[in-house]
């Protein structure tokens, strides 16, 4: 039996950003892609949404302080 982990209540919303959105994001924060937090390419959620190396994933999760908080992670391959 294989279950859809994206539907689990402890897994926050993940979505892959479009090219333009990534550009805009990097511009707003004035950073290079490598300065984003990372997510491994073999992370279960990254696999579930079919993310490729270099994709930026937008994560929307519930926050005890802010209600809803948004974070971004760049997909990376583990070295070796």
């Amino acid at each position, binding site marked *: 039996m294989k279950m859809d982990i994206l539907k689990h209540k402890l897994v926050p919303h993940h979505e892959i950003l479009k090219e333009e959105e990534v550009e805009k994001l990097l511009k707003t*924060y004035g950073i290079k892609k490598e300065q984003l*937090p990372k997510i491994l390419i073999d992370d279960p959620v990254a696999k579930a949404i079919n993310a490729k190396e270099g994709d930026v994933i937008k994560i929307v999760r519930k*926050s005890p*302080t*802010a209600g809803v*908080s948004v*974070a971004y992670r760049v997909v990376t391959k583990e070295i*070796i």
Partner: protein
Amino acid sequence: MITTSKKEIDKIVFGLLSPEKIRKMSATRIITPDTYDEDGFPIEMGLMDTRLGVIEPGLRCKTCGQRVKDCPGHFGHIELAMPVIHVGFAKTIYAILKSTCRGCGKLLLDEKQLEKLRKLYKKAVERGENTSYFVKEVVKLASKVTHCPYCGREKLPIEYDKPTTYREAGHKMTPSEVREWLEKVSEEVGDDLRLLDINPEVARPEWMVLTVLPVPPVTTRPSITLETGERSEDDLTHKLVDIIRINQRLQENRDAGAPQLIVEDLWELLQYHVTTYFDNQTSGIPPARHRSGRALKTLAQRLKGKEGRFRSNLSGKRVNFSSRTVISPDPNISINEVGVPIVVARELTVPIRVTPYNLEEMKELVRRGPNPKPPAGVVYIPGVNYVIRPDGRRIKVTEENAENVAERLEAGAIVERQLQDGDIVLFNRQPSLHRMSMMAHRVKVLPYKTFRLNLAVCPPYNADFDGDEMNLHVLQTEESRAEAEILMKVQEHILSPRFGGAIIGAIHDHISGCFLLTYKQREFSKDDAIRILAAAGYRGEVKEKMSGKEIFSKILPEGINLEYKAKACVGCATCVKEKCPYDAYVIIKDGELLHGVIDEKSIGAFKGVIIEYITRKFGNDAARDFIDRVTKLGIAAIMVIGFTTGIDDEDIPEEAKLQINEQLEKAKRKIQELIKAYEEGELEQIPGRSLEETLEMEIMRVTGRARDQTGEIASKHLGMDNSAVIMARSGARGSMLNLSQMAGCVGQQAVRGERIHRGYRNRTLPHFKKGDLGAEAKGFVSSSYKKGLTPTEYFFHSMGGREGLVDTAVRTSRSGYMQRRLVNALENVKLEDNGTVRTTTGEIIQFVYGEDGVDPMRSVRGKAVDVDMIIREVKNE
């Protein structure tokens, strides 16, 4: 003679010293283990050879010709008779031996694997990533190889015995054999050594097996002369002596063709000495010791740990312009102030630049000298300790030269003036766990020898006066003073970033005083009212008769509107608000206290609703002023009303004692019944528990209830006319539980959450029968503290108490270590202007600080805004 020249450090490269390099930088070879001759003169080519530098005044260094102060010291060297492993690299050597071929010295990877790793390595370097974990990968891949892909030699398993022994297929390798192997590796592997985390430009693997040992300069291991004239050598010197001795013997034996066994023994001994010379806490071998039994402090011990070079000398530095002494309380100074003893004020100075505008003033100041006599009626005026002339010369001002120095004072000089009232200083109490542990205060010079501080700042420093000491630092630049003034002053920290509430506030008697003043409708005569209000700094009209609530209202700022439940609130099912029989519903309208009593919840540190409100609404100045006044008001009130506590506060009537005894008897009977039911197998088992556990739980419940009930009986007879009760109910000190334990019964003692059961076989103490499960035999203390404990009760109580002490000790050490780790991990994380939290390289940790971007110090108990408060305010206007 070498003249020193200014040199700038361009870069630092970490690498290994080659034997040639060690010989080249050596001032002399060391061959004899002796240090000084009979005349106390250093022996040539001994460990104290004057070519290694000098430590005695008068002697000149034979290498650089300079004297003690100027000679930096020079290295020497020892030629080892046989090579030895360097412990510091034992693991690296192991990795190399595992991943290379003994036959040809090549890495045990085929070209394809190598090419792939090289590519990955290059990429990692380009990205500036850590490359140290390539070693693991290489070793992992090599471990799968059975035969060398280049020369076909069989790869035999390598074992490593801590700290410095290697075996190939069970056969022990000598350091010489290891060195030969490593030599082949450096020849064959070349640039691929980088995959093993070795930079071939600065290190060759065979240098990890020592053939020459550098001898550090004498300046790094000075000998000390004891009062008896006896010389005592540094631990490093002792260790070097050992090494040279064994080295000599090894050389002699080998040259004389001694049996292999003897040579090997000596060789191993040499290895031991060299190993402990580097690190005397190497696991797997006993540490080298002094004759006295003390373990030697060798190279690693100089660097490692809390007392090591890093944590003690580099991260933690001792500073000038600081002082430390015992603290004591002073309710008359502001929370922003600190009382500094005259002796300390005379020692600490503030630098003042002399300009044409203050020249005359400064001349006058310097003329006073270092110990001026204050005019009549004044206890202290500042003097001057040093004057720094424009040319940089530092002149000590004495009573004799003061006049002279003052006359020659000119613009551009710096006058080091002693502390005076109003100077800003940093005040600190360890452990510095949060930012409030170090705050800026204004100096107030006072007589006697302790630092004085206002009682309201005890909570942030976590200070009391049972012998606590604190440190004081005098700021030396305008920038630092401005920064301290704006950011670090005590009044800037009334609200804590920890929970967004007041952390500075009234304690103990301030709270008792305000409670007594404002509880219900206490009346005060005009005289008393004036006395109380004058102490609190109130100036204005006073009515003929005043209630305590009216008096308190005088120090409340206008425009304060608050409604909340006081600490004294007992939590009735339905709150009747202003009709509360305990006067525990506080209503303040436009600065008038209409209902309710002022207690811990209103003005206490950590709680202080009023303090919090004033800080937010009227700012830090108003809050500081309020705290200064409310504490003085509380003290004045408690002195007018009168307050005392003693053991008779826990006196309860005979009838109450009987009731308590009755309750205790009942509880004991109930326990006997439970035991009987258990023994007869009639006890109903709690699901998921054994019968024994069920019994224990039931008994614990009975004993717990017994204590509560006795406490209730006792409290019924302790009313609001009782000082101890007033302190407990107002939150000033102590709790109702403390009181009921003093008056009623202490209750069940526990170790690890269970009734006490350890001790003798089947019983806790020989006073009881074996297998006794009753209340007394298992640590129930039915006496009260006031009545006194029986010997067995006292013993059980001590067991419970000991557990508490051990727990605190363990907790503090563990949380201290956790804090250290956390601080080290987060010290470089910084909040940027755009609200992101980043590392020094600009990597994002959080996109919005705390996810909501709220500064907890400016929050309302963690929330960005207090909606209820805003609504109430809008409605009121």
